[in-house]
């Protein structure tokens, strides 16, 4: 083994996204071994179909919620209310559309979206005020809306599931554009907008500064509370877009179940993507990867016919594995092992993980 090869390996493993990428690849490989047709994509009626496309489409709402969550977590906060905001947004939009004489009217749908989006901004501002102005700890402040918001969503739907029949609205969740699911375009657009807003301006650095050291940031003249307020509004805005997708996909709004527990998956996606819960440096690409990993996992659970009773356990084991290989302390031990065994091909050592993960599956 040449030293440059080793050097390159060291550089690659030091990259924060290295282990998430490996985890995703490992999962795709495991799926392909189980079912060789997993990777195939075919054209039917002008649309592309395949497991990979499904994974990306189904991960879109989670990805959008997680992107907003990334900014909140980067400031050292957390937003538990995103699931409730999904439900409220979806419910408002569906309720408005269901009252329209012509549910297929584009103007009607756009009005519904605007209404729901506006309400989500208000909800985000509520969180922002509680955290940034009043100074309540984020986990408590957003817990309020997480609990109350579910109730609000059920009030809006009057405890029923609102079913609509609106093809423009359905487009958001289940439509197709240029052979691909429309939801993918929305997710990509949200990712690009957030990336541009944080990395093309100084917002990203300022968020990282506030999350890294709030007092030092304040003494540098950063209006920390404005930034913190802003990220909760952005998070709610992302959540409502995801809520549109979820409800549009099934053409109905269920105040009780829409977006249920999505906050937990979103937090997980952010953490898998390498953003620290303590705040500071954040990675949007990491979050996108994290969301893909979680959805791949869910899809695998179905594809491999794992019984529902064991699927949560299976998920938990994989998540633990992904988090462990990212932990510096664990990697240090892992690295020692590798050094002692001398230059065994490192990817083999990594591939050992998915094999371990399969144990509870069998």
């Amino acid at each position, binding site marked *: 083994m040449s030293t440059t090869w080793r050097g390159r390996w060291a550089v690659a493993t030091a990259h924060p996204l290295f282990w998430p990428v490996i985890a995703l690849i490992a999962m795709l490989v495991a799926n392909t071994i189980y079912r060789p047709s997993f990777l195939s994509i075919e054209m039917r009626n002008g649309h592309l179909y395949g497991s990979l496309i499904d994974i990306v489409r189904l991960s879109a709402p989670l990805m959008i919620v997680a992107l907003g969550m990334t900014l909140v977590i980067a400031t050292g906060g957390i937003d538990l209310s995103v699931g409730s905001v999904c439900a409220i947004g979806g419910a408002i939009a569906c309720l408005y559309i269901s009252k329209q004489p012509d549910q297929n009217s584009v103007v009607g749908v756009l009005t519904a979206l605007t209404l729901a989006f506006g309400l989500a901004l208000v909800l985000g501002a509520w969180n922002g005020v509680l955290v940034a102005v009043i100074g309540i700890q984020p986990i408590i402040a957003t817990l309020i809306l997480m609990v109350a918001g579910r109730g609000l969503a059920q009030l809006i739907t009057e405890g029923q599931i609102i079913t609509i029949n609106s093809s423009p609205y359905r487009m958001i969740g289940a439509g197709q554009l240029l052979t691909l699911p429309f939801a993918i375009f929305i997710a990509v657009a949200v990712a690009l907008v957030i990336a541009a807003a944080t990395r093309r*301006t*100084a917002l990203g650095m*300022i968020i*990282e*500064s506030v999350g*890294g050291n709030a007092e*030092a940031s304040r*003494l540098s*003249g950063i*209006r920390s509370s404005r930034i913190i307020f802003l990220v909760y509004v952005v998070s709610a805005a992302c959540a409502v877009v995801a809520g549109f997708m979820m409800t549009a996909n099934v053409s109905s709004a269920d105040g009780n179940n829409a977006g249920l527990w999505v906050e937990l998956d979103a937090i997980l996606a952010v953490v898998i993507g390498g953003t620290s819960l303590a705040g500071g440096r954040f990675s949007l690409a990491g979050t996108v990867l994290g969301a893909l990993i979680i959805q791949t996992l869910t899809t695998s659970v179905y594809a491999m016919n794992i019984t529902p009773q064991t699927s949560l356990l299976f998920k938990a084991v994989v998540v633990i594995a992904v988090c462990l290989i990212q932990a510096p302390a664990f990697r240090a031990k892992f690295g020692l092992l590798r050094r002692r065994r001398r230059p065994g091909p490192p990817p083999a050592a990594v591939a050992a993980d998915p094999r371990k993960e399969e144990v509870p599956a069998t």
Partner: protein
Amino acid sequence: MTDPVVTMTAISKSFPGVRALDGVDFRLLPGEVHALMGENGAGKSTLIKVLTGVYGIDAGIVTLGGEQVAFTGPMQAAAAGVSTVYQEINLLPNLSVAENVFIGREPRRFGAVRWGEMRRQARALLARLDLSIDVAAPLSTYSLAVQQMIAIARAIDVQARVLILDEPTSSLDATEVTQLFKIMSQLRDDGIAILFVTHFLDQVYRIADRITVLRNGRLVGEYLTTDLPQLALIEKMIGKELDVLERIEEQQPKRTARQGGTPFLQATELGRKRSVEPFSLTIHQGEVVGLAGLLGSGRTEVARLLFGADRADHGQVTVDGKPAALRTPAAAIGHDIAFSSENRRTEGLVGELTVRENIILAMQAARGWLRPIPRRRQDELVARYVQALGIRPTDPEIPVRNLSGGNQQKVLLARWLITEPRLLILDEPTRGIDIGAKAEIQKLVVQLSDGGMAVLFVSAELEEVLRLSHNVAVMRDRQLVTELVNDQDLDADKVMQAIASGSREVTA
């Protein structure tokens, strides 16, 4: 000669972009006070952290009591008898004093902490240091100096064979230093090996038996204190002819008072309850006002009020003769006021951001996030100040927490200098940094004020205040007691007198 209790052989340690230690040898004998000397970034802190297992080493051998050791962390090192008190106090402000002393090794019975016993032992231990305080009160209620003593108490309580004191005196006043030295001598006589790091040369000559000098991560040599005159020591530390020292001497010892014209900033009866009594202070363009006083006399509080870091509840401020509301740092920055805090780690730098990002932070904050500073302009500005202030290492893309204390201070200065303030408030800008960097910062202050910038210079070192200031404001017990013109007659003794007596009459 007794066998060394600690030997370190050919130690090397690198960080991304920094070669912190390069083949350094070091030994520590029982019953001695051994001073580890060197400029900022010479590798002193790294050597200590290697010894206590905070960092692993890339190469080399560490032995303790003749056996090779590789501690995995300070707890393990402490259990083996190597205790450390770090430069930045590593205590937990929201826990009680007793909890801080015994954290991790609380007296227990059946797994439950014996709180009464813990408090009793803590009181006994602090009594050894002549410190009689309420051990049940939260640590944050005590001053930095007292916190430092508590950190030392914690370190000596474990059955220590080796006690490492990293800059223990930088936040202590003269009496407290004497107190500390008494304890150090006592511990030395008990056979404990003490490793002492400081930037105060006179303290080295007061207490140390031997001296090891590092420079740029390499060993320069080990000497008996009696064999190494002070000038020779400085030469070995900075590794060049004494031009740095000469530069300090060159600086005119007295600066002609500069008054008249509209004051840049005028504070009238400005105050804040439980922080500082109402005071009045005037600062003109191009004037350096020194703020002298003992630790805890309210120096920092005055600085924070003028910057809006704390909100005043009394009095007014005018800037350029017009009333100004300095309610937040952002507002003060809007009036071209800058503030470099004494706590650079907690109130100054954002550790995980890079040197570049830290330097542009204030300027970017003033512009607002919608108007990012173009990257090329950032690189230009950063390169200019990295060069002008001699920030090492020169790579602006490494996290600022990887820099040594003095270089971090320079990064903080650079952050404010690029905003081109008209009033620069410096709170202990030379605390805990080496003589070369100190001289550079003092020189910089003179240059800036000659260029028309107003400077409020807060320092515990009277010589420094006197060397730089046109006027010296004296603080005592959270009151501004008097303001002295730094003319031919003013010397450290007179300022000291003003601090001690605290009345206007004596100095008048």
